[in-house]
């Protein structure tokens, strides 16, 4: 790659470094011109807002009168707000629930569907179907499913009798209801990835294991699961990254209620920006979140590089 940086004629070897740069630019003019639009757009629409986030966190944002510098006030507001602690606990609860209720579902279904011979294609398409429907439409539908007079409660009262469950308005149930809906909606795409991995495992490994006397369950435990281990770890990381920032379902279905039971940290950022109109505080919360997540990212990177060795 450095070849191009070398002067072409020996007589030029004593020239200054600047002409070297000019030459590189001349030779690779088109290469850099091709990169220029993307470099500009990344700088303006990604790096600039990321840097501005730190700046804005020290300002009081006012669209009419202009921004004023307030020092650490925004951070003080964040630490004095009792909702922040509550929202952090809710976010952790949400992440945990998503792991317990949702993470294993695509793995189990991918193994099950890989074994099914008849109508396998149909099951695949069916599982992916909710990913095709706009999420807002699904929020609308599920609000009715979860309604006190909706079909789920109708089923419960029919089978068990009694009162039925206030899925949306009971603080104990609201987060669980949201996680259940999201699992239903999202597991299809993860399932397809696992399925591709499961189907790419060589069949003769199972053959060999069977000859050695391994039962079906042993084959799954010692061949199938280890073969997709890498993917499982990757999906786990992606899910944690995703759920730590989750707010859209909570916002659309319950607006953070009942009694702030589904108010996640990201949702609180959004609320500070939209309803409380404290965009500086929202920026400060973003900065704090960035700090925590980057510490986690460093730890994860350390663990991963240790694992590779």
């Amino acid at each position, binding site marked *: 790659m*450095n070849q*191009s940086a070398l002067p072409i004629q020996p007589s030029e070897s004593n020239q200054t470094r600047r002409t070297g740069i000019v030459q590189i630019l001349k030779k*690779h003019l*088109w*290469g850099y011109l*091709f*990169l220029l*639009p*993307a*470099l500009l*757009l*990344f700088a*303006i*629409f990604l790096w*600039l*807002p*990321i840097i*501005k*986030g730190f700046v*804005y966190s020290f300002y009081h*944002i006012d669209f009419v009168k202009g921004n004023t510098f307030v020092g650490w006030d925004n951070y003080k507001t964040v630490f004095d707000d009792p909702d922040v602690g509550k929202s952090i606990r809710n976010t952790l609860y949400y992440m945990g629930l998503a792991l317990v209720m949702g993470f294993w579902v695509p793995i189990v279904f991918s193994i*099950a569907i*890989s*074994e*099914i011979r008849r109508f396998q294609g149909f099951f695949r*398409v*069916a599982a992916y*179907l909710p990913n095709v*429907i*706009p*999420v*807002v*439409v*699904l*929020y*609308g*539908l599920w609000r*009715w499913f979860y309604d006190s*007079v909706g079909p789920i409660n*109708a089923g419960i*009262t029919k089978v068990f009798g009694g009162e039925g469950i206030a899925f949306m308005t009971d603080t104990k149930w609201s987060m669980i209801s949201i996680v259940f809906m999201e699992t239903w909606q999202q597991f*299809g795409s993860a399932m*397809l990835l696992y399925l*591709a991995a499961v189907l790419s495992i060589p069949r003769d490994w*199972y*053959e060999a294991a069977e000859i050695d006397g391994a039962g*079906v369950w042993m084959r799954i435990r010692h061949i*199938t699961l280890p073969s997709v281990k890498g993917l499982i770890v990757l999906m786990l990381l992606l899910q944690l*990254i995703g759920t*730590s920032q989750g707010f859209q379902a909570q916002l*659309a279905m319950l607006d953070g209620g009942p009694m702030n039971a589904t108010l996640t940290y*990201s949702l609180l950022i*959004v609320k500070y*920006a939209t309803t409380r109109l404290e*965009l500086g505080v*929202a920026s400060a919360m*973003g900065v704090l*979140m*960035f700090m925590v*997540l980057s510490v986690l990212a460093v730890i994860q990177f350390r663990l991963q590089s240790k694992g590779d060795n």
Partner: protein
Amino acid sequence: MKHEERGIMSRYDHRKPVNRLTYGIIYLVVLIMACSMLYPILVAMFNSLKTNTEVNSFPPTFIPEHGWQWGNFKEGWNFLDLPLFLRNTLAIFVGNLVVTIVVLGMAAFSLSKMNVPKSKVISMFFLITLFIPPTTYLIPNFLNLKDLGLVNTFAAFWLPAGASAFNLLLLKNFFDSLHQEMFEAARIDGASELRCFGQLAVPLSVPIISTLAIFIFSTAWNDWFWPSLVMHSDHKYPLATAIYKYVISARGLNLNIRFAILFMVMLPPIIVFLTLQRFIMRGLHLGGVKG
């Protein structure tokens, strides 16, 4: 000899009664799963054909019992200007796709096939953004667009579409798989870099471009929160945001009309998906991790 493809279980396993029973149960569970995926679609359809009193009755009925109210669709159609919002969604989709192919395509081509010096550093500049969670700069991002005077314009979607490290990576990986010799030959024949990109690289990358089109379409079709922040006037909302603002959050709207609107909105993507299903599944596979 008949060679049969085996799975985790062999033909021999299938003969054992215990295995047969578990297999049957698994089949049943998968079948229930598939039904639960189809159920909401049918519910939306049937509920949009009921009278309002029937939708609100308890316990709910599945199939309309008091006549099929086809007029609900007309009423829902008149309630919202669906073609306008659909047009906005498509405008965002087409603009984003064009910017992605031109801006990110050229950058990926440069990084992959034009071996510019310092391409490692430049790649870092692009790819580090993948590790910064978008929610942390959600509000600054909005303020930045406001500072630039882009709020309430479609450019607020089109231009940032060129700042997607994930899509850049997809394109670059694909270009890496194209043979360098082909481009060398074109250059020797006197083709400019622009022609190499426009008439050689882009036509060869139809598979990855269709994958990108699927991703970009599903984002444009699904995203409701960000447009609700960036767009202020009613006639600029994309479909998903309009549904959220006027249908999901609406109080006075009758339930059967609500279902009629939701059903009309979910039908087109389902039909497109089912007809192009084989291509879409292949495209998703090519896209790798992002589901």
